[in-house]
């Protein structure tokens, strides 16, 4: 029976529900980093090609988000943070999410390859595969290192942007990838320390649950140390410059200071002041990544005016 009375309030999705399926907040980071990768490259595409490249990279990111929501619908329904998502709340059917994810994956990969080059399309396909299959289906529920390895999926967009413009992978693209890849663990573990999450109920092995908060604090410190050389090295490549290097030195010193404070803090002290330092470091880590990519743009602008290049 197709009578309209047979639909309840949550049975039919609105357009916005499908947009939510694509994780628009994650997409904004993808758009920004892919755009920077594209703009700092030595080869310049036509504006329409550039627009298409960023659009289809973002669409590919959104598609992998939809596939992730389809696969994780069972654990999303358990956790407070995610139970309002379109599938667990019943607004979008799992089959719809899978169909949208697969369709947008195909469209974004083929269109990126046609608009720019085949290598960029292949990298986007690998990114979607990595996030949907390697991270969501395999790592997320099996190892506390899920954040570390899964972070690669979020690190690909600037590399794809670069490849879309130049047609090849170079040291600059690899270092932009490494910057986000190494930044992801301390960023998420700082969040995990102050978010009293219900990952345990959902049986997701987060480091805070499997190894305890003291070990997680140590991990934040050591992974921040590992991040610093990659961030600074980018400053000595063809896309680096004085603005990037100065910005990076200041930001890395501050990130190290924050990570050190997290490591040396006692859990009781942190709980007493409402995880003040952890929250500060988490917010700062967002600024850290944003400012690094803005500095790359600033140096690219200076180079175009024949100022400040190495």
């Amino acid at each position, binding site marked *: 029976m197709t009578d309209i009375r047979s639909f309840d309030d949550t049975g*039919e*999705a*609105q*357009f916005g529900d499908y947009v939510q399926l694509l994780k628009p907040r994650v997409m904004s980071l993808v758009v920004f980093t892919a755009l920077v990768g594209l703009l700092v490259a030595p080869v310049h595409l*036509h504006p*329409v*090609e550039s*627009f298409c490249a960023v659009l289809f990279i973002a669409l590919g990111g959104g598609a992998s988000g939809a596939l992730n929501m389809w696969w994780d619908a069972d654990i999303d329904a358990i956790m407070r943070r995610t139970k309002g998502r379109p599938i667990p709340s019943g607004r979008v059917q799992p089959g719809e999410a899978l169909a949208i994810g697969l369709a947008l994956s195909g469209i974004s990969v083929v269109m990126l390859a*046609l608009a720019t080059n085949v290598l960029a399309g292949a990298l986007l396909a690998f990114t979607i595969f990595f996030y949907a299959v390697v991270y969501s289906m395999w790592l997320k529920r099996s190892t506390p290192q899920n954040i570390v390895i899964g972070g690669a999926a979020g690190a690909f967009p600037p590399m794809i942007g670069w490849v879309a413009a130049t047609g090849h992978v170079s040291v600059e693209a690899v270092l932009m990838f490494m910057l986000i890849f190494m930044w992801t663990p301390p960023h998420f573990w700082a969040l995990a320390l102050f978010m009293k999450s219900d990952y345990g109920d959902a049986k997701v092995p987060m480091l805070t649950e499997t190894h305890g908060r003291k070990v997680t604090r140590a991990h934040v410190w050591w992974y921040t140390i590992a991040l610093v050389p990659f961030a600074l090295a980018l400053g000595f490549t063809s896309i680096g410059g004085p603005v990037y290097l100065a910005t990076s030195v200041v930001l890395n010193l501050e990130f190290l200071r924050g990570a050190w404070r997290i490591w040396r803090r006692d859990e009781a002290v942190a709980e007493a002041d409402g995880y003040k330092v952890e929250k500060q470091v988490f917010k700062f880590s967002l600024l850290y990544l944003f400012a690094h990519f803005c500095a790359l743009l600033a140096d690219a602008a200076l180079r175009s005016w024949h100022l400040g290049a190495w």
Partner: protein
Amino acid sequence: MSFRPEHEIHRRRLGRNVGVGLLLAAFVALMFALSIVKVTQGDLMHQADHAQSVGAAATTETAP
């Protein structure tokens, strides 16, 4: 004959259909713009054509 009152479900569907329609129209416009750019740039296409014609000419000249 009486019209049925509009149910809330109709408004939801209208919003969704308008959204999909606008997206499709934007996609068509984008594909048109991209096609124009690719055709007017045409560097790679010219190079490929040139390479093919040179190759064909060389084959013809060296043929017994």
